[in-house]
């Protein structure tokens, strides 16, 4: 194979795979790394494109994660879920979703509840 062809193929290999972009979470309420003074009652998620949520949990420290739902089979870009009563502390929200192209994405974000002293 000629060097010019080899170079062409290498460039192709390097860039063709980068074409497969995935959906991602671009905003949430509470936001990632946010500290809120009052326990939120609702969780909002906003993705850059329509997805189907397949798993959603919230976890405080080392305690067992709590599933949030119900999760619909229909795709959407924005979701809202009622939250259980949250004490002061740091929480991790973990999500999994499939995008319209069939890719499974996973992500997580954290926020902290720190109520004002009585």
């Amino acid at each position, binding site marked *: 194979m000629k060097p010019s*062809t080899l170079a062409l193929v*290498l460039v*192709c290999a390097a860039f063709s795979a980068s074409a497969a972009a995935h959906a991602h979470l671009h905003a949430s309420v509470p936001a990632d790394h946010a500290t809120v003074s009052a326990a939120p009652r609702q969780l909002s998620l906003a993705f850059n494109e329509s997805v189907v949520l397949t798993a959603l949990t919230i976890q405080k420290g080392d305690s067992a994660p709590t599933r949030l739902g119900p999760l619909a089979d229909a795709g959407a870009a924005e979701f809202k879920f009622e939250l259980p009563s949250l004490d002061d502390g740091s929480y991790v929200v973990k999500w999994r979703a499939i995008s319209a192209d069939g890719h499974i994405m996973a992500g997580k974000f954290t926020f902290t509840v720190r109520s004002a002293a009585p």
Partner: protein
Amino acid sequence: MTLDAASIALQAIAYLALLQAAGGVMYLGSVGAPMRAGREAVVALIRRAAALGIAAALMHAAFEAGRMAGEFAGMADGRLQRLVWFGPAGEATVVRAAALTILAMRWNHGAARIGTVRTAAAVLAVLSLLTVGHTATNPARGVLAPLLALHLLVAAWWFGSLLPLACAARLEMPDTAGRCVHRFSVVAGWLVPCMAVAGLALAWLLTGGRFDGTQPYDLALLAKAAGFSSALALAALNRWRLAPALASGRPQAVRRFGLSLVVETVLLAAVVVVTAAMTSLFSPESA
């Protein structure tokens, strides 16, 4: 083994088996047509690869429900299994499994022609991959799909021809083996550049070429490029040094040529494994 690792392993096996089975059929229908003594071995390879491809694809689809849940228990979740099998990945798996079933069935390896049905099944099995991935939902799908199809079909033909060529070198008379290798080199000289052009066009249309070489996705791309370039170097060695020696019947030529093809196969397989991991775990947008 974690869920992701198990899923990626199954995905890689499914891809490799698919490329071997479909590519093997393409080989017999094109550059491998002169084969006689080694044809039975190639047909057996295709049938086994097809059977493995079916099993791995079905298991991978079932594992996807687990990945959706983030735990193995998700595989028993009816809602998630429904999302898998009635979604793009499930549909692609069903189509691919049906096409590979045709290749796995008993066939007359002595027949001179591969047959329209098997050729169509091989092409369909590869093209089933078009229904998943980012091009499936892109507004420019009318342009992207043909480019990706060309890219995948040439990849299948290339990868799927290597072990059959090793069979030809081992089992055929030197002149027949030399003819197969020569035909392969001539066709590859046209198809590989076409594959490259198709890849470049895909990249141009979809991304604009973001790449900084520092993130996991980029590192995976570099690993792919390294494996790919090594395989190409071996291909060049085969074409210019080992193939002429094989055709002239020189001692040790068969062993060296076969070893080179096996190494080339391993390198391309490594590229496929990296691809399976990269597309499962990393996103270029988060890179």
